[in-house]
């Protein structure tokens, strides 16, 4: 029989490729921890460290006048009597100078309101109907972080328990290995994104990791299901049966990934800005997850012929 996917032949290549991906991810995580200003494995956003994020549109007749962020910051400092509010402030103009986005460390509601009023004086008028402002206290941020880490651990535990009960230990172990592989790679990609593009992760990133975990196991389980069924039905060799099962499930797995990627792509293209990185993380997770379910996890099941 002719296989589209030659697992047995390519076992070493597949495992080697995954090892390289994992190492690159770990490198990103180490680099981020030791060589960046935030000294964390991943660039934690204000959900986890607290802070103030403000996005507001300007009201412009036709074209919004051009301001340099530095000059605006300078004026803000002149106007505001509370100088330390303006430390570590990041200000950007986006969307043809129309959208102002600002990040500062945690401010009280009063301080935040003052900041907006001052901005209105400098670059205004502003359209308050288009305001998007978030303030998160540092304590809450810490708590959110612990919450996210706990939910990740608990759900990983629950998933491993379920597949151990449903399959035998060996299958469970490899399904979990594939799962960790996917999570580490997505985490690593975002570590690199943090290092290179200062992309920050928020609580939706934790959600995406959890969803990826569920999705990745789902994918692997379907293939393992098929392997188990075929091992009972077919009279071919162990390795051949695994290869056959993967090829039988190949269309299903790729089609499923594609149909899940379509809606995510729509969110990336048309959805709200706040969901952009979330959808991207999910998309990456689904791509890596499909790869690991089709190629990596079954390859791990293959026996080396002595």
């Amino acid at each position, binding site marked *: 029989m002719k296989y589209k996917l030659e697992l047995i032949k390519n076992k070493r290549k597949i495992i080697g490729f995954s090892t390289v991906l994992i190492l690159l991810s770990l490198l990103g995580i180490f680099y981020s921890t030791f060589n960046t200003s935030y000294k964390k494995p991943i660039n934690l956003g204000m959900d986890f460290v607290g802070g103030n994020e403000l996005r507001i549109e300007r009201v412009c007749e036709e074209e919004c006048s051009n301001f340099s962020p530095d000059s605006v910051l300078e004026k803000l400092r002149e*106007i505001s*009597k*509370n*100088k*330390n509010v303006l430390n570590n402030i990041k200000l950007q103009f986006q969307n043809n100078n129309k959208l102002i986005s600002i990040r500062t460390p945690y401010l009280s*509601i*009063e301080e935040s*309101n003052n900041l907006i009023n001052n901005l209105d004086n400098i670059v205004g008028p502003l359209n*308050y*109907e*288009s*305001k*998007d*402002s*978030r*303030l*998160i*206290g540092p304590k*809450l941020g810490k708590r*959110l972080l612990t*919450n996210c880490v706990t*939910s990740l651990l*608990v*759900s990983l535990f*629950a*998933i491993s328990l*379920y597949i151990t009960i449903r399959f035998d230990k060996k299958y469970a172990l490899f399904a979990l290995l594939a799962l960790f592989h996917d999570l580490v790679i997505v985490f690593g990609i975002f570590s690199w994104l943090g290092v290179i593009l200062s992309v920050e992760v928020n*609580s*939706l990133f934790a*959600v995406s990791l*959890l*969803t990826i*975990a*569920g*999705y990745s196991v*789902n994918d692997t*389980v*379907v293939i393992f*299901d*098929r392997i188990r069924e075929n091992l009972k039905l077919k009279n071919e060799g162990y390795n051949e049966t695994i290869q056959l099962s993967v*090829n*039988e499930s190949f269309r*299903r797995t790729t*089609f*499923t990934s*594609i*149909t*899940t*990627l*379509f*809606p*995510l*792509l*729509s*969110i990336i293209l*048309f959805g*709200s800005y*706040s969901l952009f990185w*979330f*959808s991207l993380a999910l998309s990456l997770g689904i791509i890596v997850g499909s790869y690991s379910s089709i190629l990596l996890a079954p390859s791990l099941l293959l026996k080396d012929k002595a």
Partner: protein
Amino acid sequence: MKRRQGWLFFILFLFTLSVYLLINYPLQLGLDLKGGSQLTLQIIKEEGKVTRDELEAVNSVIDKRVNNLGVSESNLQTLGGDQLILELPGEQNPLVASRVLGKTALLEFRTQKKGTSTDLKTLQLQRLNIKELIEQYSSAEKSQNDDNFLKVIQDDLKEKEQELNYTSTSKDLYEKLIEIKKYVDKEITNLFIKTDLSGKDLINAGRRQEQTNNNWEVLLTFSNSGGEKFAEITKSIAGTNQLLAIVLDGESISEASVGSQFANTGITGGSATISGNFSAENARELEVQLKGGSLPLPIEIVETNTIGALLGSNNILKSLYAAISGLIFVGIFMIFNYRILGFVSVLSLVLYGFFNLALYSLIPVTLTLPGISGLILSIGMAVDANILIFERIREELYDGNTLTRSIDSGFQRANSSIVDGHITTLLSCFVLFLLGTNFVKGFAATLGIGVLISLFTSLNCSKTILRFFTTYQSLRQKNLYLPRNNFSN
């Protein structure tokens, strides 16, 4: 045959019911979709955990205060045992809410210790000076360029600190002034002795403008026993030099003398007035705090989210585009690859969408941005089940089975994979829902509901529709179910 028809009618019935529900019970939109403010309040307790009773007490006080503020459609929920989430729909400025909510509003009445008159007078004078400084600061802030003036205030402040033998710790000048004022208010409170009359004896609070000037005063109405206590206290100090202090959260906000005409009976009638140079806004805030009662534990606002109404409706539009284009992409892909089967899956996806939304309005689930992304993502997962089934049906067809048999065993054999896959996703949703924050919960809820409904629509609706289709002879040709380029695995 009868049973199949039964299912078909049941599905049609569910569909009609969903449409009915959606028309009559509109979906609840989260603040990120309609605009408004959301505040997360943290209850602060130095030692031990916040008990259920304390949580409920805080909840009811905040609830009363919000209602007294006159915000319509506000919504208050507890979160995680020691947090509250307050939603103020519409473009609300969280500033007012924050001022009113954050205060404990513990109201006390205290009588002056003997022999403290000189100290009190000095402190009162200091307080007056600081108040003036604060006013000067505000006007300087408004005119914006008066740096010299601020320098003067700063120097005055230093002088005050020396006189009071107290150094402020705040960094900002305005905060320094407020801190000094609080310090003086507390020092004044220390010259007074507690009585047994407190905010608990209040039954109402109100406010009115003073007739002589523009200032406002706050009116207090005591309960019967409170009125008696008040009469007794005023009687005991009437005509003496001792003053009566009204203390809010440990800071004296007003000190009053009681005239000698009350020496016999005290002030009766069960009401009192606090006139302490209140602005209209301050008087209203105090009124709201007193009406709502005092908080058993202090709270802190740890998170605020404000989203403008325009942005909210933009978010809805964007999500709608994303959801519809996602569905169209998926639909085209499915019909292209699976032909008749694909068409069946599109029908069952549409049903899936309607069932989901109807359930949201029934439960009810408040729809937020992450919630919508959960819904959109669950479309992908719902299609997955269909693909699993269709691939199995095709295999059966390749093996030379009849259409009916292939369909039946296709569904049967895909069953275990579908259930396994859905359960792992459900597990994640369950954990997310239990441990997640507000936003995360929305995502977990919609994804979880989606996964459950997907079990029904993919296993049942797709099957019923498919069987209905195959009752027509023209739709029974095998090649309509196989890919155009008929390759074999």
